[in-house]
């Protein structure tokens, strides 16, 4: 799984959002998402929503190190 794969999947799930994905080794990923769909959600809920997008990859371990920074886009 590459940073590009993550970005493509996130852009599909979070249209009109600010998204960037960073990884030096394609194993540890840092993701920043600013989206209107986080409106009214706590930080934990925002992260849970994003991780649900990768529930399969997280279960198989294809993706295991994902650091998220989420923000509600006004």
């Amino acid at each position, binding site marked *: 799984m590459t940073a590009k794969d993550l970005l493509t999947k996130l852009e599909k799930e979070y249209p009109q959002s600010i998204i960037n994905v960073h990884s030096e080794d394609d194993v*540890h990923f840092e993701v920043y998402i600013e989206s209107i769909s986080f409106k009214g959600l706590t*930080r*934990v809920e925002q*992260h*849970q929503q994003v*991780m649900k997008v990768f*529930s399969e990859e*997280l*279960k198989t371990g294809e993706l*295991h*190190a*994902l*650091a*998220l*920074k989420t923000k509600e886009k006004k």
Partner: protein
Amino acid sequence: MNPVNERINKLLDDNKVVLFMKGTQNFPMCGFSARACSILQDIGVNFQDVNVLEDEEIRSGIKEYGNWPTIPQLYINKKLVGGSDIMMEMYESGELQELLK
């Protein structure tokens, strides 16, 4: 209630601060678990570490328990706080120190 949830409940009842992690607080086995430990150690709070690498039942059970699919995970007063990224964010803002008072 299934046995795994009972075990988790007991752990959370008996300890105010519980970090489910890979490895132990003295020998963390993964970067994010190490980061989580150093944050708590820097704040100087005692916490119970649970090495999920040595307990497969807890490793999968805790992910279901709080609907959080990654390790490490921090619980304070039986409430899920989050992974190492949220811990870092709260540590930098001082929110985590407040919560641990």
